[in-house]
């Protein structure tokens, strides 16, 4: 427990490079936007 820093729970991108890339996830434009590109808001298919 740190006194000056609070770390939020996040997925470690380095670890995701080891076992990622299955490609089952949603394509970026299939949600609401259609005019921008947003991937950070998507959920990995393995976490659903």
């Amino acid at each position: 427990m740190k006194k000056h820093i609070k770390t939020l729970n996040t997925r470690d991108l380095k670890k995701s490079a080891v076992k990622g890339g299955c490609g089952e996830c949603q394509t970026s434009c299939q949600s609401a936007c259609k005019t921008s590109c947003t991937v950070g808001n998507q959920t990995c298919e393995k976490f659903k």
Partner: protein
Amino acid sequence: MIHKYKNNGYNIVLDVCSGSVHVVDDCVYDLLDIAAELHEKFDRFSVMDLLGAVSLKCQTPEGSAKYSVYGTQEISEAAEEITQLIAEGMLFTPDTYEDSLVDYKKRQTVVKALCLHISHDCNLACKYCFAEEGEYHGRRELMTPEVGKKALDFLVANSGNRRNLEVDFFGGEPLMNWDTVVELVRYGRELEKTHDKNFRFTLTTNGTLLKEDMFDFINAEMDNVVLSIDGRKEINDLMRPHRGGQGSYDEIVPKYLKFAEARKKNERDSYYVRGTYTRNNLDFAEDVKHLADLGFDQISVEPVVASPEDDYALRDEDIPGLLEEYDKLAKLYLDYRKAGKPFNFFHFMIDLEGGPCVYKRLSGCGSGTEYLAVTPWGDLYPCHQFVGNEDFLLGNVYDGIRRNDIVDEFKCCNVYAKPECRDCFARFYCSGGCAANAYNFHGSITDVYELGCKLQRKRIECAIMIKAALADIEEGDMEK
């Protein structure tokens, strides 16, 4: 690389390449400036190195003013915690992905999503429509069931081992061709059984032709529904009139409210009311608030992408105000949540814990490779925004892809192919941005659309701040 910023009373530090997010006090926040300088010069440094650098800094008038407000013990503790995080791989993590990822051009891609232009016709005349009132610089036409089925066959045949396949019924206005939508969904369900696939259908509509007797089918079959509306009546009706000029707000709002209510009770409950903001409503947070107050809880309001000569186009001079508007919206989002009236705002959604793997984050939006658009007569384009530009005609659903050279170009369109993205903290959240926007503004899909980038970065900052605030709320700290 780290990105640190202050927002809504929070000091936030994003370790870009590990994805770690830290909320820090002022002492750590300021000490990180010195740590970043040390990190630039040396691969590794110790607590003592950092404390030594602080002492040196304090010998300058600026450094003394900045750091003398903190006590010696506070600085020592902060330095200890910073070096601890570095050792844990959660600060100043190097970007090692470019070398370890596969050769982008050689990678095998499969098609997993189609944007079906089920109708190149529309009964509205929205002024900002990139589809030119549905026609996409071409002719008015509805997709026949035959072409649609060929498109689904093409998708299945080119999807390899991918099980989840997405099909968006898009337009123009898809409900002008409702019977074909129904027929294609049923055909897709048959294909699921024979080919072990799972279709996820999406419908995007302007709402004018939406009828209650469609609700059951839509709710049973559509994984997501996008309902277009810009917000306040005067804002919506200014940009989303019928061809005769009369506004669409009064007609669509009651239908959307009924639909949203029915949707909530459904297993497939995802929907968005989705608007576009322009120079006419730089105060777009008011439109989001209006939609939330109407009772919608899934909201997306997004910046218009328009030619600079259009009077409603966003301009560089508008950016400072727009950034403030996102801050205002982020506070509104939190206030509504605290008040028990939560709504989701699409561009503030960020999945820190279960977000995509780094491959997904680096490889772009998938246009031209995984995601293709199909015209009513079966032509294939890299995405809906390229439809009508013959330079990007890839092939058709009968003969397949004939322009693999264009597909290869899109395969290589990732964040490392874009010089502007290399040092941008947002690159793992936007995946390099929209290729169509880059092309339309600069003639190259590996360029970037700067105005969009500036807004995107702000939205990510707000989204992460919201996560920090929600973590506080969960811990019972309602004061912040």
